[in-house]
């Protein structure tokens, strides 16, 4: 019986970030408008595999997802053993821009979830002209913390297990079991301290409340979609953020939580397809 090969292709690239070489892994599928997908904290690009397998998307979009350094199949930089990983707003912004430039992507759409949704807001603030459109999933300019990140990396608590158990409640009860546990598996696989390091950006360095008002959606349309069961970035957090951004379009997704693309791909599809169609339609005029 022949192998059931998927159309997703994975490759490695060397990218200089913060003056240091990084070996970065990324996957892609499809052709057309580049759509760069940014995974959540402590996870990796596999979260977007269902989009890459959806012909309704890949017939119009070149869908790309890279694993951030320290995540998935991307390595931490040389010398990582002598430092604590901490993601910053500047480093994350540089990473997304550098990835697009390295692949010579022409005005890509960027769609990020959670920390990826937060950095999308910063891309809109600092680099709007570079992008065709920006999509923030579970995105807000700030959120109230709901646990102490000190628990995420200490020797008497298994990091993978506690990270997965913490985020498990962010999914909607309607998430199919197989998708729920696939989403959790990525958290269980994450390297020690990586989720915690990502949350440095989320909680300490990435408060965008003072600056989101500068976003000009005429330069780059901004779509914000948040799951109703996400109690980390709540629909109210997203709606509050959008109030400061004229022209931002908000959708609250029913029966979705913090990981819509991986926890319930079929439900997410109902919400993201019209957004992608609209972006494509705007480009055609």
């Amino acid at each position, binding site marked *: 019986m022949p192998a059931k090969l998927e159309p997703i292709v994975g490759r490695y690239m060397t990218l200089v970030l913060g003056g240091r070489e990084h070996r970065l892994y990324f996957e892609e599928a499809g052709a057309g408008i580049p759509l760069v997908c940014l995974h959540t904290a402590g996870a990796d690009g596999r979260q977007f595999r269902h989009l890459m397998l959806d012909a309704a998307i890949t017939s119009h979009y070149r869908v790309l997802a890279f694993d951030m350094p320290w995540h998935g199949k991307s390595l931490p930089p040389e010398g990582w053993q002598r430092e604590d990983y901490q993601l910053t707003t500047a480093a994350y912004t540089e990473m997304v821009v550098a990835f697009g430039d390295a692949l010579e992507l022409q005005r890509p759409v960027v769609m990020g979830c959670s920390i990826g949704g937060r950095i999308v807001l910063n891309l809109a603030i600092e680099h709007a002209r570079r992008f065709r459109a920006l999509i923030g999933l579970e995105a807000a300019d700030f959120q*109230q913390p*709901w*646990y102490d990140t000190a*628990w995420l990396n200490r020797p*008497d*608590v*298994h990091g993978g*297990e*506690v990270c*997965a*158990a*913490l985020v*498990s*409640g*962010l999914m*909607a*009860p*309607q998430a199919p079991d197989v998708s729920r546990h696939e989403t959790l598996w990525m958290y269980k696989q994450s390297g020690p301290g990586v989720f915690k390091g990502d949350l440095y950006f989320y909680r300490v360095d990435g408060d965008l409340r003072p600056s989101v008002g500068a976003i000009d959606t005429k330069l780059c349309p901004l779509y914000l979609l948040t799951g*109703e*069961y996400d*109690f980390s970035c*709540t629909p109210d957090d997203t709606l509050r953020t959008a109030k400061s951004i004229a022209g931002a379009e908000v959708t609250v997704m029913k029966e979705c939580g913090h990981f819509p693309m991986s926890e319930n791909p079929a439900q997410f599809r109902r919400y993201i397809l019209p957004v992608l169609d609209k972006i494509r339609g705007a480009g055609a005029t």
Partner: protein
Amino acid sequence: MSAAASVDDEHAQLLARFEQLPRLVNDDADLVRRGAWVDLQFQVGLDVVPYHLTVAGGRIASLDRGPILMASSRFQIQATGEAWRRFWQPVPEPGWHDLLALTKRGAARLDGDLQPLLANLQYFKDVLAAPRRLARAGH
């Protein structure tokens, strides 16, 4: 039935549901397997009613309605009656569907030594959610 009697009845039902926890957990081989390293006493509060639970190898060895004088517990999980009622709905509403959603909204609190709770967090989340299965079964 008077309004007060109705509230009392609802409260009694809530306690009765929670008191089925040993059977619900111990009959769930997967849950017991995942709690194999858990051996401790902890406390759960339903409104003002404290329950003392002993876990041995993932099984609920005992569940006693308190107050019990001088009972030890590693940690305590306390929530309002409304929180537990909404948490145990077959399909709970957003914001009432997870233990940490309850603590974030101020409807529940965690006290004591939280290390064993965090080290076995999914196990304890699933133990506390087990009465939801009764609602799904129509009890």
